[in-house]
């Protein structure tokens, strides 16, 4: 009745096959490649050009054209390399101040010069101080200088230096949330998870394959972005590359956990998309990607500090810009590890396989 048994072979390695299937799907999807490798480049080019350094900043001031004193006043102010001086009749000058095109309005005044400015406007106090300084009588001949000046060139303090670690951070966040979360929900929607569960597949191996895949891609992401930043913007790595890669791997693991947590119950793509945006958007805004998180009021700081992306960005900036070692980033490493661990454990307990 039955034909002879077919010959059997040893199956290929499970974890390797699971990882390979992740990697193959990843490299064969041009859209995904763009988001992971192209998007940070585009962001760095656009923002890097918009905020490129333009030499010392000059504060705009306007001198009101009225009477004889105006000429001397303008001359004294123009002597300062830090002031951009324009002359205008009173109505135009007032309008210019109101529109913040000028930070300080200067009039000759009856007895001495008069300054008008809004002290709550950023830079207005500094501009006013410069104006006052320019109008002081010159120091007497031969008087000793009050301070000595030692010129230095600092590295890692341009906007692009600040930006690159932030872009690496959001790249890793996106990779974890979308690369793991989106993929898992889409497999659930396509009944592929259910199909896998009908086999003796090891479920821990399945989940581990996502983490391993993210580690592979994260190492490539970090190296690629740093190389690009070095070649195009001369962003120099002050710390060690190994530390950057280690932080990137830790970040990738932590965000994979978050991605897994976001995806653990969602039954359809709409829910998953909503959850992923809820998870990523606040960190995009709060975690100091495009501007320093220290700008937030002090009562928000503890919350901002506790976010995993803030921890990763702070640690990456410490290593990339300040040349710190990963060993000095204990608090940040702790925050990342805690988020990763808690979300992995929660996700495993809540995971919906079918």
């Amino acid at each position, binding site marked *: 009745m039955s034909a002879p048994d077919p010959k059997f*072979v040893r199956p290929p390695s499970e974890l390797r096959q699971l990882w390979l299937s992740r990697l*193959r799907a990843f490299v064969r*999807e041009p859209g995904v490649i763009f988001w992971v490798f192209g998007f940070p480049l585009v962001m760095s080019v656009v923002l890097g050009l918009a905020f490129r350094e333009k030499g010392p900043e000059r504060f705009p001031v306007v001198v009101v054209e009225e009477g004889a004193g105006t000429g001397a006043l303008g001359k004294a102010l123009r002597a300062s390399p830090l002031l951009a001086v324009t002359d205008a009749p009173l109505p135009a000058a007032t309008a210019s101040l109101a529109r913040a095109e000028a930070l300080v309005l200067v009039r000759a005044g009856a007895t001495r010069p008069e300054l008008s400015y809004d002290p709550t406007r950023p830079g207005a106090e500094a501009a006013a101080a410069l104006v006052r300084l320019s109008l002081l009588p010159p120091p007497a001949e031969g008087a000793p200088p009050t301070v000595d000046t030692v010129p230095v060139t600092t590295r890692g303090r341009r906007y692009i230096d600040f930006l690159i670690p932030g872009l690496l951070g959001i790249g890793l966040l996106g990779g974890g949330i979308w690369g793991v979360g989106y993929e898992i929900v889409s497999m659930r929607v396509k009944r592929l998870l259910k199909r896998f569960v009908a086999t003796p597949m090891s479920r821990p191996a399945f989940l581990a394959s996502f983490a391993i895949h993210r580690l592979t891609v994260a190492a490539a992401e970090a190296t690629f972005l740093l190389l690009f930043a070095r070649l195009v913007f001369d962003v120099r790595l002050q710390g060690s590359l190994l530390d950057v890669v280690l932080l990137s791997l830790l970040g990738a693991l932590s965000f994979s956990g978050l991605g897994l947590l976001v995806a653990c119950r969602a039954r359809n793509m709409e829910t998953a998309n909503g959850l992923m945006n809820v998870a990523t958007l606040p960190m995009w805004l709060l975690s100091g990607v495009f501007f320093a998180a220290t700008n937030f009021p002090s009562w928000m700081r503890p919350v901002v500090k506790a976010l995993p992306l803030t921890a990763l960005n702070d640690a990456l900036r410490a290593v990339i810009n300040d040349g710190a070692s990963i060993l000095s980033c204990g608090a940040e490493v702790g925050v990342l590890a805690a988020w990763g661990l808690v979300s992995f454990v929660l996700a495993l307990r809540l995971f919906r396989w079918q």
Partner: protein
Amino acid sequence: MRALWHPSRVHAPVVLALRSLVKRFDDVVAVNGIDLEVRAGECFGLLGPNGAGKTTTIEILEGLATPTSGEVEVLGLRWDRDAARIRARIGVQLQETVLQALLTVRETLALFASFYERVRPLEDVIADVDLGDKAKARVGTLSGGQKQRLAIACALVSDPEVLFLDEPTTGLDPGARRSLWDVISRYKARGRTVVLTTHYMEEAERLCDRIAIVDRGRVAAAGTPAELVAQVGGEEVVELVAEPPVPEPVLAGVVGVVSCRCDEAGARLVVSGIARTLPAILEAVARAGSRPVRLATRHATLEDVFLSVTGRTFEQAEAPAKAAGAPR
């Protein structure tokens, strides 16, 4: 082509057993007391309209759903104790699984192979489902029939003792359907057990040694296709449209007519001894002052069985299920 149901199989070991199976979802009873036994080497079909409870039943057998009550035995094992051992010995094809479009046929099969302890050589399995020339093609480029054959290859890679197929040919064109039947027949020819669900009568008649007709969560009738057709009481069906319509009692009274149903579409008569009965029917039509507009005769099929055991045609049974959106 179909392997004959041999009486000796009655003594083959029981591979699958369901006893008093009930599955309740929030407000729907999907399975309402099903008893089944499937023996080694047979192809068993669950035939019924959408929403009848076929998929729920097969998913309970596959360990993908847990019954509300009742007993389930697969290969003499139970899902609550031996899930891993059962999974290693069965092969499953689910309705509506979408395999990863960016992987190739061979890569997909290698992935599934990696889940098992021992597998057949991938090339053999690929050849078995006639995808030899597509081994390096991406899944996304395959036709519907090819995708379905790949799905079955993934189920066959471990050479399972039992193969579960949930509506394997739904949505396929006739050519693709036939080529899938060949794949299933070849697996069956090796003496393996198959359980499949279908709502195609032809598929059930063609592939299955035994069939359970499932309707509203219950087994309405079970047996070999021949036994089921014999239940109808006659071997032939006469479909008749007459002008003006002939009253039902007139037709039912003709000697040789086993049963008769009349509706606006015409009359459907189950008859035995067609050679003698057909002239008698035509005579009765003429005596009633009508003349036949359309007349057709055919062998009784499982469709007639469904009508006779449930009192509804297959189409009528599917319509309310679709309207209510009942789970399948």
